[in-house]
């Protein structure tokens, strides 16, 4: 487990706004209520829109340095590969760079101040279906005078925009295999091979639990780490670092990964190698069922209603029979 200082979250509205962090800062100010439960929608502009749609978001750009700064703000394209989400330069062409406009486009910020920028997304009516990536960038351009290597600084908010005339493409991923390994320093770790099989990019996090170990031991949960983003169709390993004190096994490893509100669980029996700096053979992971709440409730309710209807029908038929008998007896 990574042991470190846990800083408290910024308190909401209780105290005056804290000073902005040093340098160029950017933060998302609003998100759609339909995605209130998706933690990714709280920090990135994540949405699913039809061609021809138009919506607005707001970001806040800040200057945390001790001197005033001139910033420029613009939309940019981005690429997702090898588990990393990288925002490209201003000149790079791309869907997000074309469809998104920001206002204002340049700001002069005093030390410690911030300003709100409006971001308007206008998807053309003939936009092809699919997911596009980009960023809303606040840049402090470098000075150009004098020799040496000048550095421009940029802080950006990622944009994950899925375009489609139908409903939102389903996000899905599979955990293909688990590999037990030991680092050169002797620390055991597990690599879970994850394959994005859905229609949207994923930002994964999750946990691993060990059970049925030697002497009926169990351990965990241990946190999983991935290089931030898994693009559509991509396969990347998720690493889970474990405790050096753990016996080699065999263990039943159950890994639970989530992206936004989507969760996938899989398990496999693994044994850690004894030699430092080595990996055991990958073990195919078995997917464990984990119904999304709505499906479970809907199935349960449908069954109940079916039973209720059958019971009512039965009661109605019995009642009719009783009526007929009563009528016959009377007549």
């Amino acid at each position, binding site marked *: 487990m990574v042991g*470190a200082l846990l800083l408290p*979250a910024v308190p909401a509205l209780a105290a005056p706004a804290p000073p*902005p*962090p040093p340098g160029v800062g950017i933060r998302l100010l609003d998100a759609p209520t*339909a995605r209130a439960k998706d933690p990714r929608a*709280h920090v990135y502009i994540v949405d699913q829109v039809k061609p021809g749609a138009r919506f607005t978001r707001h970001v806040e750009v800040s200057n*945390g340095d001790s001197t005033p700064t001139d910033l420029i703000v613009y939309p940019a394209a981005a690429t997702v590969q090898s588990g990393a989400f990288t925002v490209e330069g201003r000149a790079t062409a791309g869907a997000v760079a074309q469809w998104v406009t920001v206002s204002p486009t340049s700001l002069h910020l005093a030390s410690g101040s911030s300003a709100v920028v409006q971001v308007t997304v206008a998807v053309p009516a003939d936009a092809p279906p699919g997911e596009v990536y980009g960023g809303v960038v606040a840049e402090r351009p470098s000075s150009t005078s004098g020799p040496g290597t000048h*550095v421009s*600084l940029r802080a950006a908010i990622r944009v994950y925009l899925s375009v489609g005339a139908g409903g939102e493409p389903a996000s899905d991923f599979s955990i293909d295999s688990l590999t037990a390994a030991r680092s050169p320093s002797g620390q055991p770790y597990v690599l879970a091979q994850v394959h994005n099989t859905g229609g949207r990019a994923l930002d994964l996090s999750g946990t691993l639990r060990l059970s049925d170990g030697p002497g009926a031991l169990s351990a965990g949960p241990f946190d999983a780490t991935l290089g931030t983003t898994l693009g559509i169709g991509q396969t990347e390993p998720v690493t889970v670092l474990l405790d050096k004190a753990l016996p080699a096994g065999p263990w039943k490893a159950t890994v639970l990964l989530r992206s936004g509100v989507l969760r996938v669980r899989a398990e496999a029996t693994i044994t850690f190698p004894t030699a430092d700096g080595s990996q055991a053979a990958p073990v195919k992971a078995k997917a464990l069922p984990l119904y999304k709440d709505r499906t479970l409730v809907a199935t349960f309710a449908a069954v109940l209603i079916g039973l209720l209807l059958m019971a009512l029908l039965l009661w109605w038929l019995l009642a009719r029979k009783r009526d007929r008998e009563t009528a016959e007896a009377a007549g």
Partner: protein
Amino acid sequence: MRKTLVLTAALAASVVVVAGLASTPAQAQSVTFTLTGSSLAIAEPASAAALTGGALTGLAGSSITGALGSTVVTDARGGIAGWTSSITGTTAFTNGTTTIPVTSAVAWVPTGGIATTGVVTATQGTHLLQATGLALTSSAQALVTATLVVGNNTATFTPQLAVAIPANATAGAYTGAVTQTVA
């Protein structure tokens, strides 16, 4: 009569329940709520980084190295989203006569060179030495990636830069530019 009424009522109730379950929530894009997390920021001294120069005869064909200023990434969003700090070779190095393309430069962060606060795992991947450094291009490439984030965190690192000097380089003071991005 009463029996029919009860039956109809039950059927109607079932239809309403089934319809309620089957309907999906409307895409409420126009209805938003305000977020209370803070920002993601990157800081670096504004002055240009000087790479150690020297006599041209000794340098042509090898590379000169130096450090970009201390870069501080502050993630005050208070969530579990990771961040990626990337570097771009924006402007080639030129002294007015000779232009050294950005692809001649490599960037790396030495082992143990990322100091963090808060719950975060920040890694520079394989870019620990000049030999395995990240070759700059005009596209942004990830240099330091942070994962396993829980709550506010910061990372401080000083990217090292090495520029390969071509054999036909001329003497003079060279100026170039790189861009560091955090997203």
